[in-house]
Structure formats: structure tokens, C-alpha cells
């Protein structure tokens, strides 16, 4: 019997997208952000897989699904090291990394308790800034900055 290697623990797909290097603790957030619970394609998840870089990582394989850049970049905030493999006929035809978008809609809560987004049913909107090499989000409403360490998902 052939010894399975780690990568094969989650079965291969014919066509579609593999999202690798997701921190294991963020798997369900990624599912939510990409609304994977609402699509009817075949999806396989693997989690708590060993990763030198992340400790424990998760992987998602989605058949017959190719993401728009804006769509996939939404996960950059919680899975900045995520890598995409685009699969055609069982072969990786393209590799992509996620990039932080310039604007983030929804997803994150504004750190300012006096912000309108924390009072009324207003989806938060942020402009993504770099501050000392870290991500900072400036609220488009109250103009307060949410630092990387204070980022809380909705």
C-alpha cells in the first residue's frame, strides 16, 4: 500500500480552487466570509493539519469555483498567508496569494464604542492603512483607527 502523504489527506479535485495555509482557528471565519455555506458546489475541508509556519493550518478545496480577486481578498485580514491554487484537470495551473483590499466592508467591528456602526444597523466600512508595517483600519464613519491587535470580526 502506498503511504499517503499529508497533502493527500484531503482528496484532490478535478477543477476548482484550493485555499491553503489558512490558520486552523480561522477556518470557520473564512467559510463565513466567502459564504461557502451557501454555495452548492462540492467542498472538502481539512483542518488541524501540520504547518511549519502556522502551527496548525486548514485547507479548503472547492470544486468548480473560481473566485474574483475582490471576493477572495476579503480573507486577507484573517488569513494573510493564504495561498490559492487554481486547479484545471487535476493540475495546478495558477498560484495566487491574497492581498489586502483598499476598502473592507463588513467583516470587522469598529473599535470605537461611540461609532454609529455599533449603534444602528450600519455595516462597518474601513479604509485599509499601513501603520509601522502593521495593518490599521480607518473607519469611514467615525474616522477612528482600529489597530491590528484590536481587530475583532463581526
Amino acid at each position, binding site marked *: 500500500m502506498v503511504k499517503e502523504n499529508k497533502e493527500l489527506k484531503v482528496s484532490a479535485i478535478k477543477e476548482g480552487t484550493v485555499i491553503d495555509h489558512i490558520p486552523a482557528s480561522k477556518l470557520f471565519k473564512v467559510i463565513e466570509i466567502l459564504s461557502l455555506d451557501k454555495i452548492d458546489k462540492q467542498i472538502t475541508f481539512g483542518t488541524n493539519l501540520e504547518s511549519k509556519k502556522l502551527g496548525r493550518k486548514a485547507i479548503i478545496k472547492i470544486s468548480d469555483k473560481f473566485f474574483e480577486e475582490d471576493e477572495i481578498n476579503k480573507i486577507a485580514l484573517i488569513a494573510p498567508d493564504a495561498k490559492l491554487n487554481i486547479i484545471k484537470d487535476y493540475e495546478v495551473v495558477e498560484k495566487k496569494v491574497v492581498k489586502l483590499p483598499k476598502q473592507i466592508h463588513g467583516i470587522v467591528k*469598529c473599535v*470605537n464604542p*461611540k*461609532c*454609529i*456602526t455599533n*449603534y*444602528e*444597523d*450600519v455595516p462597518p466600512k474601513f479604509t485599509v492603512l499601513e501603520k509601522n508595517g502593521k495593518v490599521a483600519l480607518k*473607519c*469611514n*464613519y*467615525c*474616522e*477612528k*483607527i482600529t489597530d491590528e491587535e484590536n481587530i475583532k470580526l463581526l
Partner: protein
Amino acid sequence: MSKENFLGRSLVSILDYGKDDYLTIMEVAKHFEANPVQNILSGKVIATLFFEPSTRTRLSFESAVNKLNGKIIGFTDASTSSVKKGESLKDTIQTVANYSDLIVMRHPIEGSARYASEVSKVPVVNAGDGANQHPTQTLLDLYSILKTQNTLDNLEITLVGDLKYGRTVHSLIMAMSHFNPKFNLVSPPTLKLPDEYKLFLKEKNIPFAEFENITDTIKTTDILYVTRIQKERFSDPIEYEKVKNSYVLRNEMLEGTKDNLRVLHPLPRVNEISTDVDSNPKAYYFQQALNGVYVRQAIIALILGLI
């Protein structure tokens, strides 16, 4: 001058505008100062929605509208309106937008003005959204500086009082940053300017230094901008009492200062400028408040495309 930049557009934050926009407003405000009574708002309805009371700001807006022959609808305090019954801001704004050509809004929640501008079909002028923005105050400060100094460029500005929570001070720093200023920051150690603004000044290569006494830099100052130190900012009342009296401008301090120095204050004043300063020709704070009427006339006229 690009007046088109204002047409139909809400005025929410001073950060949405650049140097040319400020100068356009200054130019138009000058026109209204020369001709404050006109008929241009005839047939227009301006809503003033004050979800928290601010008599001074409301009266200034209403005076601006009345002098231009516009009509005013609205409320002066949310406790007397449908908001009290739990109506959402969105519903209130969308309803009022049906009845008016422009909405002036004051609201205690930060970011409420931006949100209102998104859900309103008529332009919204922010008259203060909590501790965030109060752009018409900043613009009238700019107009007052321009009028008293004949320029906005290369001025030495001393900011006194609560530089930590003072929203007018933060916005003034942002707005003046286009005009090559030098800032002296005079405050109690507990109420210093927050780091984010110091970082902003550094990035823009704008010189600034911190002081603890008004007299440290008063001799070289062009604009002395005094703000109120609020008691509720101090957990220790004794600390407040100590601080309160060391940041009071008294008339004798103005001896030997530059002829062009003017004292500004966003008002209301409590005791941070003693009343003996009022009769000094360098006191400008009441005139500054009057300038607010012209600046608000300019803003409304520009947004509605009436000038």
C-alpha cells in the same frame, strides 16, 4: 475656484476637502459678509435636526438661513421628536429629506453624519457628530484667521487648553496643515495632543513643540487659540482645580505681544479667558462667532448651487 466641487455634496468631514476647497469657501464667505441679507434661499426649506441640543450652533445656522430668506423646519432636541419613540436615524433622515432641500444635523454618535449623508437624498451638513467632526466650526476658524491675518500662510499658532479631547483643535490642525504653519501646543500634561496628530505633523514636516505655560510662546504668536478644559475630563477634582487656573489667559499676558496677534476661542467660554481680555482689541472670539454665520451661508449656497 471650483465651486462645482460642492454642488449637491454633503459636508461631513474637513478631511474630505483640500486647500482649494477651503479657499473657495473663504472667498464666498467674504461675499456674504459684504452682503449678508439676500433672497437666494427663497422657496428653499432647510431642516435643522439637533439630536442633541447646541443652541449656539443651531442659532448660527438658523440666522444664516433666515438672512437669505430660506425657511427652517426641524427639532432642537431629540427628546421632543419621534427619535424618542425609537425611530432609527435612517428613517428620520429619509423622512425629513422628503420635506427639505438640505439637512443640517447635530448628533451625539460619531460617524452619524457620514451615515446620514449616505441614506439621504438631499445633502447633509454635519453640525457636529459626537467627538468626531464639526467642519463648519473649523471653516469659521479658518475664516477668522484669514480675516485677522490677511493670510493663512506661514503663521505661528498657539493652541491652549484641552488638546487631547478638543475636536476643534484636531480639525484646525488638519485644516491648517495645508498652509505651512508652526504650532505651539500648550496644555496640562494629562491633556496633551494625542500621538496620532503628532505623527501627522511630523509626516508633513510641520514644526511643533509642547509647552505648559501660555506665556512660554505668546510673544511670537500670531493666533492664540484657547479652548475650554472640561471638569469631566478629570477623575480627580483637585487635579482639575489646579489645572484650571494655570491655563487662564489674563489681559496683562497680552502686553508686548505682536500687534497682529488675535485671541480665538470656539465658545462657550467658562473662565479660561478672563473677562478683562474682552475689551482688548486683540480679543476676537465674539467676532469669530459672527463669522460663523457668513461661513454657513457660503456652505449652504455652494451646496445648493446658488452662488
